[in-house]
């Protein structure tokens, strides 16, 4: 009965309710877009670290888990591999270079990451072959690099790196393409550690090694259920290191928490505004319908029918608005340039949609309470 009355009212006033659904759709677009932007920015920041085949990262002490500031001697990596409870460990060294696309085009900034092939930190290829130590002038690039510069397996790419005071160009052959492995807002190129040290930007072009200074060590545990024990073991055995899990590591990246906090605040405020807008609309609706509600009660409509009608109306209008908003968001996202980082994951979209559907009834609670309290005699002016 409540659904019957709701549908009848919405259908007979469809223009009004459609327009209000559009308001909810706009709120949905804003919230979903903010969520997608948050996810996109986070992904750009953490994608490589999040996909590591490891549970822990070893950093230098007192650098607040900053991958850029952390410096670890190669020997520490060797030592880490021998610790009981560690299944495998891999060195990771970060730097930035540019990839020359065409003569007349701006070079593309990429993360230049040195890893040890087949060790934690070296991504698996989805096309071509995984990274190898030899020959030296080969690289595994991530999908976003491939998309950005239009490179395929077997292509040669040219990187530009500052050696001393001069920009030098080096050719690398793409032997494989990994999935998305963006790091610190840049697409990534993976090379062996020795190649990395040779080609990374540095003050002294002749200073490179096959066992260079690393930034972090990725640790894969034998037993991932007791990581705190392993953390203690590593810090007890290796001097001047700190160990943390992957999530803490990427959340400690400069600006990460501030950026996510800002976006979450925007999202929170949008939810709040949505709640108030929906609440306000339905409250006005109820105020306009007081005599009608009074009449329904006077002819014997129970309070729960009046409330259920109001709730189902809010749910129907909200659902319609959220569906339109979600479709509009996906359509809008599809038209955005690829450098705008808007990503949608099933979980983030589902959580956002469920929250949007809940704010309708939450905002409408006051109007439902108002409908519940309508006195037939007063409403009918008897």
């Amino acid at each position, binding site marked *: *009965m409540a659904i*019957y*009355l709701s549908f*009848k*009212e919405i*259908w*007979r*006033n469809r223009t009004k309710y459609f327009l209000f659904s559009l308001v909810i759709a706009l709120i949905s677009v804003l919230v979903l877009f903010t969520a997608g932007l948050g996810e996109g920015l986070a992904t750009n920041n953490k994608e490589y670290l999040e996909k590591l085949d490891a549970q822990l990262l070893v950093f230098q002490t007192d650098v607040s888990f900053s991958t850029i500031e952390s410096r670890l001697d190669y020997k520490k990596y060797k030592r880490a591999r021998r610790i009981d409870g560690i299944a495998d460990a891999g060195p990771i060294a970060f730097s930035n270079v540019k990839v020359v696309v065409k003569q007349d085009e701006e070079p593309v900034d990429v993360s230049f990451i040195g890893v040890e092939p087949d060790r934690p930190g070296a991504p698996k290829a989805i096309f071509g072959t995984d990274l190898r130590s030899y020959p030296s002038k080969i690289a595994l690039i991530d999908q976003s690099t491939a998309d950005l510069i239009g490179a395929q397996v077997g292509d040669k790419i040219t990187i530009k790196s500052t050696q001393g005071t001069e920009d030098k160009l080096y050719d690398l052959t793409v032997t494989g393409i990994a999935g998305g492995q963006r790091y610190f807002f840049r697409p990534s190129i993976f090379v062996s550690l020795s190649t990395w040290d040779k080609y990374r930007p540095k003050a002294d072009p002749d200073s490179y090694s096959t066992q260079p200074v690393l930034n972090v060590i990725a640790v894969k545990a034998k037993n991932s259920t007791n990581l705190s024990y392993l953390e203690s073991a590593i810090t007890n055995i290796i001097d001047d290191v700190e160990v943390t899990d992957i999530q803490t590591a990427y959340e400690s990246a400069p600006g990460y928490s501030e950026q996510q906090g800002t976006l979450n605040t925007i999202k929170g405020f949008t939810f709040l505004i949505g709640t108030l807008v929906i609440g306000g609309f339905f409250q006005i609706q109820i105020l306009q319908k007081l*005599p*009608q509600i*009074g*009449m*329904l*009660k*006077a*002819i*014997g*409509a*129970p*309070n729960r*029918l009046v409330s259920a009608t109001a709730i189902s109306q809010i749910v129907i209008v909200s659902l319609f608005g959220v569906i339109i908003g979600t479709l509009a968001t996906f359509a809008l996202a599809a038209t955005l340039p690829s450098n705008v980082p808007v990503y949608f994951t099933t979980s983030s979209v589902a959580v956002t949609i469920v929250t949007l559907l809940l704010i309708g009834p939450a905002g409408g609670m006051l109007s439902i309470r108002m409908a519940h309290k309508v006195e*037939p*005699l007063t409403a*009918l*002016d*008897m």
Partner: protein
Amino acid sequence: MDRYILNTIDLSKTYRSNELVVHAVSKVSLQVKPGEFIALVGPSGSGKTTMLAMLATLLESTSGHIYIDGEPFDDMNQKQRAKFRREKIGFTFQDNNLVPYLTAIENVELMLRLNKIYSTSEAKRAKDLLLRLGLDEQINSLPSQMSKGQQQRVAIARSLIHDPRVVLADEPTASLDTQRAKQVVQIFSDLIHEEKRAGIMVTHDLRMCKYVDKVIQMVDGSINRIIDEPADIDVLAGTSEFDKLSTPALL
């Protein structure tokens, strides 16, 4: 007692505000037999609407008893009263009678749905009732597409479709012209008589009293006068006798 559908015994309603005590209805005893249609008349403030609100279980009495079909509803809670209203009482109001987003037929069917007795045969009965009320072309019209008179006729159909024992009407002709008003009350009266229901209509318009079986005049919350043969009441129009029925100052 059971030969009356509606029976009130010493029914009173008193409002208190600080030191002020207002006896809106004072010890009214009223009996309505099956098929009897009564008009409650009287000036503003005479207690007729309060009386109607109590009979409709919308307002609790201060003292006294009300029986409908011998069943008292003095001790009913709000939920029970709502159920009692939708099953036993048919109500027509002065305004805001219809649900604006339901068509004429849907408004009538609303009572069937509320009472969970909606079926194809009941829906046909609702349609037949509207046809009888001369609303052939308005069956699928929304209230906004109908005249006031047509709306009141739909409201009458709605108040009768669920076979209530008591039918109450609060100034059903207030917003109608004389011709329409007479037509509406005539139909109302016919349906009450045919179906052997108890009908009570509050009205200011004494010309409508020729269609009822009894006129009860209320003054200051009490029954002042009962006219048992009101059929020729409009003959009195323009006379002091007529004025006395609605103007207590002249009594």
